[in-house]
């Protein structure tokens, strides 16, 4: 199974539609996952979907994503966990540990989306809990 995370430096990229880089993990038979990075060729839904499909991605974890983009990707059979935030390693551990539904991994205002995810141990968590997982604004990562 191939898992892709759209990343910016050490964190999940805030906006998938504008993200440039993917971290891809080949999770096969319980072996140590093979990791590599890849860049997107284009920004429109069709080319991003093709990029993911051509690389054999089964699951995508990303930040905020526009509806047409998400529709395009899911229509090709790729599972999308969207509106996720946090440091890549924390998010990855949460995904593998079935904890991605926790409020701390949701972008503000997007908590309701977690409840639609198939497994959501974080259901009992309330809206607005926590301040995210420490993707702070360093000199290279700025604000709105």
């Amino acid at each position, binding site marked *: 199974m191939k898992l892709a995370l759209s990343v910016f430096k050490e964190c999940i990229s805030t906006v998938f539609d504008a993200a440039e880089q993917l971290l891809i993990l080949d999770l096969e038979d319980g072996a140590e996952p093979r990791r590599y990075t890849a860049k997107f060729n284009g920004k429109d839904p069709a080319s991003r979907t093709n990029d993911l499909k051509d690389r054999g991605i089964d699951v995508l974890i990303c930040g905020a*994503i*526009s509806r047409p983009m*998400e529709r395009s990707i899911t229509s090709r059979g790729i599972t999308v966990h969207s509106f996720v935030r946090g440091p890549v390693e924390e998010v990855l551990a949460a995904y593998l540990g079935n904890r991605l539904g926790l409020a701390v991994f949701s*972008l503000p205002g997007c*908590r*309701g989306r977690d409840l639609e995810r198939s497994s959501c141990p974080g259901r009992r968590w309330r809206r*607005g809990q926590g301040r995210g997982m420490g993707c702070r604004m360093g000199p290279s990562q700025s*604000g709105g």
Partner: protein
Amino acid sequence: MKAGKSAPPGSFSGAGGQNIILDSIADGVFTVDRNWRITSFNRAAEAITGVSRGEAVGQLCKDVLKADICEKNCCLRTTMKTGVPIINKKVRIIDAQGRKFPVSISTALLRDDRGKLLGAVETFRDMSVEEDLRKAVLSKYSFEDILSKNHRLLKLFDILPDVAAGGSTVLIEGESGTGKELFARAIHNLSPRKKQPFVAVNCGALPDTLLESELFGYKAGAFTDAKKDKPGRFRLAENGTLFLDEIGELTAAMQVKLLRVLQEKTYEPLGATKSVEHHVRIIAATNRNLGELVRQGSFREDLYYRINVFKIVLPPLRERMEDLPLLVDHFIRRFNTLQKKDIGAMSAEAMSVLMDYVWPGNIRELANVIERAFILCKNGLIEKRHLPESLLTENREHAVNKAASLGDAQAAFLTDALRENAWNRPQTARKLGIHKSTLYRRIKALGIVTPDR
């Protein structure tokens, strides 16, 4: 911008007063500290981003605003670094529902009364209506512009990227006013041909000879007034998309010519001695049932199968009434901008009239009804009296009288009861003497569409 320390009693300069002022501003406003954490967030910012103040305060501004520039070209960062404000920079944000739309942002430093840097302030304005109008003028529509939560259309959206990516001919069937050209343009704009031309021809508007010269062009000398070569629509749409609207109106002779062009991928301009090869994608549309026309013998079966590679059937508005509130809001926003008015919304009573109407003219008719209401309604809500008489007096056959099954009869009865109670479900349940959860269950089971907002 400077922040004062204390506030005289009764003034607006204290923290509470500042919130009142900020909340009265139509633009989104938020402030950040020097660590990019949001320290205040006004009501308009909540409305635009879909993030509540409680959720936003304390968060990184990029996580709340979700703008395409946040990571690489942050305006606040530039302002904090240079001290220079940024005025009206156009960026795109994604709200909590996944809607991507343009906003215009401005930034400035925030200092206390001693000049010490506290952080920065960002104001932003939703520009989606302006962009919508620009797209309307330029006809640059994409799937993002098609408003629907109808399950049939949502299923369609799932497959359309694949349809667009391929080069196959598409047939769009739908009643007049259902948005066939909008879909055709969206398919084109999502396809690899999007940078090439999209050319539309209404096949029903022209007699055969004119249509032929329009489609295929002509050579100088082909007829008396043909002084020089004129390229046809096929030539103009080369490598792009040719939208053939009202294809069901083609005469038998033109059907034969078009079939040949589609089969052989070549055409002959009038007066030409050689065929010209084309690389045009065809999207055909009709408001008629082409299959039925084939059965009646008025449309060629071979042409039908040639264009019916992938068929899209657009539901009429009466079959996607759950989209009506969404569309009403969209047109109110559009006409507010166009006519510089401030109409709030449709009143519940007026909305139930709209929900009760069958909309033979579909979305085009709805747009016209709202435009008409804008003439009569000066401000506030659009009321029942602002709607055309025809909507109010039309003798509708109550569905209960023509119900085909018990389920239909129940649905019609419950719809009438809901309508009489202004679509207020708890009130309807009380009137009917049933528990409201029973009513909710029946509404869902019977597929009754209510004007929820």
